């Protein structure tokens, strides 16, 4: 399928959807299909497919119930072993099904298994994007959108020189950005959650696009008089708080 035809919600949903939502979802599909910074389009679409498969993985369910997420051995119900390294498949499954029990040691070991920090951050950006759109669809009672066809081409392999370790498990750009290639990412001091994926600057650009459609633009976030559409900010944050609690997210 072409991404232009993606997310045609007419006839699929009872309630009218905002146009900016449809556009943001189409953009996300285009981004998934294209070569990224470290993964090809084919690999990125495979990451998206694996994210969906993870939800129904029997081994992941068993591991989720185990006292330690690192003691269990077994095979994932994977769909992309011909495209992605096994360590990447395991990372995707953990991010989808057991993200609150990940550790810094595990991220470091991933690098030794062929998924360095750069690739991991880009993989994370694909996983979280498709996951958020799929959950939106589920909340609205809409079937998941078929995945896009990959676009041929090579990843850019561009690592931002200013990225440094010190906060979190992966290198990030500093809270205050100087003029340069990444100066468009944020103005002034940025919270950690915005900086988190800045080792792959396009992942932050993508995050901003989706967040503006799903929640609030970065500029409007600090303004507590603004909610999402007809929802007050208190209503908006109540929903946010409950989703975080279900996921056992401290942040």
């Amino acid at each position, binding site marked *: 399928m072409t991404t232009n035809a993606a997310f045609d919600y007419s006839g699929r949903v*009872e*309630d*009218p959807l*905002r146009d900016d*939502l449809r556009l943001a979802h189409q953009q996300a599909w285009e981004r998934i299909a294209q070569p990224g910074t470290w993964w090809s389009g084919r690999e990125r679409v495979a990451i998206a497919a694996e994210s969906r498969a993870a939800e129904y993985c029997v081994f992941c369910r068993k591991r989720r119930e185990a006292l330690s997420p690192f003691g269990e051995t077994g095979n994932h119900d994977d769909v992309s072993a011909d495209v992605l390294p096994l360590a990447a498949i395991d990372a995707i499954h953990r*991010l989808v099904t057991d*993200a*609150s029990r*990940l*550790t*810094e040691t595990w*991220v470091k070991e991933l690098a030794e298994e062929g998924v360095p920090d750069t690739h991991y*951050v880009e993989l*994370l950006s694909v996983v*979280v*994007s498709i*996951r*958020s*759109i799929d*959950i*939106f669809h*589920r*909340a*609205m009672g809409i079937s998941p959108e078929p995945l896009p066809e990959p676009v041929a081409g090579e990843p850019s392999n561009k690592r931002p020189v200013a990225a440094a370790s010190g906060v*979190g*498990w992966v290198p990030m750009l500093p809270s205050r950005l100087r003029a340069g290639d990444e100066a468009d990412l944020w103005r002034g001091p940025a919270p*950690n*959650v915005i*900086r*988190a*994926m800045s080792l792959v600057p396009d992942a932050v650009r993508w*995050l901003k696009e*989706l*967040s503006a459609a*799903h*929640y609030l633009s970065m500029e409007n976030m600090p303004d*507590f*008089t603004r*909610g999402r*559409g*007809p*929802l*007050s*900010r*208190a*209503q908006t*944050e*109540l*929903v*946010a*708080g*409950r*989703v*975080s609690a*279900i*996921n*056992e*997210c*401290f*942040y």
Partner: protein
Amino acid sequence: MLRASVETEGLETDYRGIADAASAESSTVPGAGALIGLVEASFSSNPEDGVAARLRLREELGAEALVDTAAVIGNFERMVRIADGTGIPLDAPVNVATESVRRELGIDGYSTAENTGSVRRWQRWLGRALEPVARYGLRRLGRRARERSESLIDS
């Protein structure tokens, strides 16, 4: 964020519905039961839960609010994984400002709490000293926004 927003709206702080979904029914946040109902249904394996939750939210808050609630659910399903997947700590001011709320809601017991250091004594004192100022500022901001929107409606 919830705390700051209720201060801005001039409401009493009410965390019911966050740690325990059932308690949302008694929350003072308008439509809390319907909002949390859609969150729960979105993570339920029973599709019928979603049908009932959407119906209730549409009836109580309208079709537009239903779409926006679904979008916010999608947004935070993304943000929690970014935070958990990169091990980021809470930003220092948030760490200080939310210390008591986290304890109250049991959030400190989550395994990802290990990524954030504990609040230092001087930070706690500073936080307490600044809290009334922050509360006043947020309430004033909210009052001004409400006056602005009322004057727009009048004109």
